[in-house]
Structures are given as C-alpha cells and as structure tokens.
C-alpha cells in the first residue's frame, strides 16, 4: 500500500531531527560551550546561519545539541513507559479479573489523578533539577499509558480463537503473551510510542523552560526559550527558532504516528483499498 502524505512528511521531519541530533555528536558549526560576548546577537548570515545569542553562542549549533537533549530525554522516558508499562499491562490482561489486574488498574487511575506537570516539577524539585530526573518524571507518567493500552489490546486478543488454540497446544499464558499477544499489539505500541515521544518533547521543553530540565551549560530548546524571553524586546528572533524546532519535531512525530496508525490498522487499510 502506498504511504500517505502525512506518513511521508512525518517520517522526513522525524528523520531530519534525529539526524540533526546524531550529527551534533560529531560536528557542530561552532562549539556550544564557548561564550564570546564580542560576537553577541549577530543576525543570521553566512557565518552564523541562524545568528548568535546574547552570549555570542551560535544558535544553529545550540539547536543541534538541544535536539540531542530533547530527543534523548523523550526517548528514554518512552523507554521507561514501555519497559515497565507493557509487561504490567500484558500480565494484567493474562490474569484478567484477578486481584493483580485490579491493583494494576487502580494504580493506573491513581497516577492519572495527579496533575502530571506539577508532579514532574515536584520530583525534580525534591531530587534536584537534572536531565535524569526529568526523564524519570516524564517516564513515570508514561507507565500507566502503556500499561493501559497494552492491557486493552491484549484483552481483545485473549478472546480470539488462536489464543485458545495455543492453550490447547499446551502453552502457558507467559508464552502466549510473548508469542501471540505482543507481536499483535506491536502496532498499537508503535503508534502510542510516537505520541508519547512527542508529548515527551513538549514536557521536556516545559521543564527546561522553568529551569528544571537539563542544566547549563548543556543547551536545550526549553532553556533557549527561557533565555530568549529576557531578550524578547531586543532580539525576538531568539524566541522564534527554538520554538519552531519544537513545533516541527512534535508535528513530525504526530504526523508519523497518525500515518503509521492508518498504514498499520488493517481496518482502515481495508476501507481504503
């Protein structure tokens, strides 16, 4: 089946930012730790593609390294969500209706009852602001999301006859979960993963904007925006580029997620054919 325009656009944007972050490990136009007040607030040009900030740092280089921070935090937070949430959800579905299932679901509800951002702020406040704590704070809220979605997906699969056939072949629920359930909810997880990834980017930007994410001198998009806000009358440009980077990255991921869902969901696929 032909991929949709949104899938292609999303994939291009996502790959672009991922490679930007990748390249930043090897090369950036200028070193980002180096402050040079002499060349502060340069306008965009051939030397400084996107200009410099009030410390004379190259905005393009900062954006590249910032991508690394944002993407790193968001991916690891999704990793926490999948790594803990999916096994919990699968186990809850395999023991549907048991006390374990009930505890997992009520625990999920409890996490959902907390205002996420406030708790993230609380965690970074109690344990000190750092990228690692930002990952933990965002990751905790990903756990119930993945637990819920994998439990829901697994429950509908457990009613299918091929699961019964596997039980007739003597397979236990753990083996069935790994062999028959997990591969068939992979699409769901992939789509939800891109959504949580994009939410993670936004959350990381928010946390580092209020100074609770990655600490200076590590550049991050949110931190750049916070710095830009103090200069908003003098150099509004500084507030534009990091914001655009966030918007494009999140937009790319959302388009990718939507595109993947349409591409992978056999129900929609059948309708289109």
């Amino acid at each position: 089946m032909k991929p949709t325009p949104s899938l292609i656009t999303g994939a291009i944007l996502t790959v672009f930012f991922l490679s930007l972050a990748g390249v930043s490990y090897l090369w950036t136009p200028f070193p980002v730790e180096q402050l040079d007040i002499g060349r502060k607030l340069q306008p965009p040009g051939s030397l400084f593609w996107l200009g410099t900030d009030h410390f004379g740092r190259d905005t393009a280089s900062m954006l590249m390294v910032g991508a690394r921070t944002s993407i790193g935090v968001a991916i690891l937070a999704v990793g926490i969500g999948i790594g803990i949430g999916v096994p919990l959800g699968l186990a809850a579905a395999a023991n549907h209706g048991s006390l374990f299932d009930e505890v997992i679901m009520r625990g999920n509800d409890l996490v959902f009852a907390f205002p996420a951002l406030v708790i993230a702020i609380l965690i970074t406040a109690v344990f000190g602001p750092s990228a690692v704590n930002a990952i933990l704070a965002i990751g905790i809220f990903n756990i119930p999301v993945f637990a819920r979605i994998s439990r829901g997906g697994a429950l509908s699969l457990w009613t299918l006859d091929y699961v019964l056939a596997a039980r007739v072949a003597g397979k236990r629920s753990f083996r069935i979960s790994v062999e028959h359930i997990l591969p068939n909810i992979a699409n769901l997880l992939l789509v939800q993963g891109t959504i949580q990834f994009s939410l993670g980017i936004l959350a990381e930007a928010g946390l580092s904007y209020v100074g609770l994410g990655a600490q200076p001198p590590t550049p991050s998009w949110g931190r750049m925006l916070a710095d830009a806000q103090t200069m908003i009358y003098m150099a509004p440009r500084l507030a534009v580029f990091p914001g655009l980077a966030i918007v494009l990255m999140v937009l790319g991921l959302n388009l990718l997620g939507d595109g993947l869902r349409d591409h992978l969901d056999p129900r929609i696929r059948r309708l289109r054919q």
Partner: protein
Amino acid sequence: MIRFLVTRLLSLCVSLIAASVVIFCVIEVIPGDPAAFMLGLNANPDTVAALREDLGLTGDALSRYFSWTTGMLTGDFGTSYTYRVPVSELVSDRLLVSLPLAVYALILSTALALPVGMIAAMRRGTLTDVGIMGTTQLGIAVPNFWFAMLLVLLFAVSLRLFSAGGFPGWDAGFLAGLKALTLPAVSLAFPQASILARITRSALLETLNQDYIRTARAKGLTERQTIVGHALRNALIPVMTIIGLQFAFLLAGAVIIENVFFLPGLGRLIFQGITQRDLVVVESVVMLLVFAVVMVNFLVDVAYAAIDPRLRIRT
C-alpha cells in the same frame, strides 16, 4: 443511580487517601528530615529543631500523616514557612486568579473546538476538513508557553493592545482583570482546543459508523437530523472525558503560563514553594490539585451516567 453514586464516591475516597499517602511520602519521608531539607545543608541544628517545632513536624511519620490529613479535613492546611501565613489563606487568594483563568480558557477552548470538530466531521474529506485538521495538527505541536511568547510579541510588544503580564487584581474592575487574563487564556486554550476538536471529529465519525445510524437513516432522517438526534449525544461521551481532563490540566498545569505572564496563581505558588523549599505549601497545594482532578473526574463520571443509561445500572 444511588448505588452508582455511592460506588463512585467510595472509589473517590480511596483515590484521595492513596494520593495523600503518595504525596506525604514524596515530600516528608523520602527527603529525610523535611525541616533540614527546607533550611538547606548548612543549617544550624538548633534552627532546624526550632523550625521542626514551629511547623509541627515533630513525631514519627505516621502521626504527622494523621495530623496533616485530619487538619486538611477541618480546613487547616498548615502554615507557610516563607510567607508566615496560613496556607489556606494563600490558596484562596491564588484560586481567585487560577480558577477564573482555567474557566476562561476552558470556555474558549470548548466554544471553539466543538463546532470546529463537528464541521470537520460533517464535511469529512473536503478542503474545509483538511484545513481544520492541518491547523489542529499545528495547534497540538505548539508548546503553550512558546505560543504565549508569540502572543506577547504580537499583541503586547508590536500592537500594544494588551500588557505583557501581571495581574491588577479584581479590585481594579472585572474587565481589567479579564483583559489581563485574556492572553494567558488564549495561549492555554489554543493547544487544548486543537486536541478537543480532533477528539470531537473522530468521536463523531466513529459514531456515524454505528449500526443505529443506519437504522435512523432508514427511518427517513436526513443526515443532519441523524447527527443532531443520534450521533451527537453518543459522541459526547469521549468528548466529555477530554473536557474533564483538560479542566484538571488547566487548573493545575498552568504553572508555566503563569510564569510567562507573571500571574499570581496556584501554579506559581507551587513553583515558588518548591524554589523556596516551602514544603508545607507544596504538600497542601498538590493535595488540593489532586482533589480537584479527582473531583472533576467524578463529576464527569456522573455526567456520563446522565448521558448513557447503560452506566446507570452497572456499578
């Protein structure tokens, strides 16, 4: 219906108790001695002991937990260490900003999103639909604090129509207060409205695929009559969930926006509490916010039952 309410109320209480335990642990147990934490590493042990006495932090964790929770039940949220006033007083002042801001943003977002989402669903596949969906896709991707900065650049810096921040207080007049809240409310509402419009559209489309829609059409209802008479009420169920979640988010999650616009709201109070290590304030305000979220979810559940008769008999 009564059994439904009782069950829901019971689970509401369980959630609140569980939440209070978690909050208490995070703030008072995990950091070790809260008084020492509040005063920092180099504090004089005598000062720490005095503060502990002052804040009623003596005794073991269990008895402190019970005095904290029973205090909250009687309206006593403790005393702020930095402000030296009862937390309840601080909170009620801040609520006068946060609550109107949340309601304002929610009204804006809902009033915008519901019609837009419905139009997109009814004209699915047309240019209107594609345009609306594109805009909302952008709206979801925009961080609200950046959108707020852009609004400030445009309306405060360039056009000078609004002030860039601050809140004159309701004493300065209702309209002045409302005006000060407008840019923050818009920047909060735009991303929320985008999400809500998309949910509205997909819920309506999902409902329009149901068998009973075909039954209604076979009765001779026009497409419009079908949507108004049969689809809308069923589609409202997922939409209401999101509105409920959004209200909770707007009340509690405006922290960053309140920072952008220097608004003296609840979110800013928490943030100040954290930076000043005023744990009593943080603990009580977070609990209050959780209470608000759980309450809103409860109200949404009750509203479900009003819409969907199937939920009234189930527990």
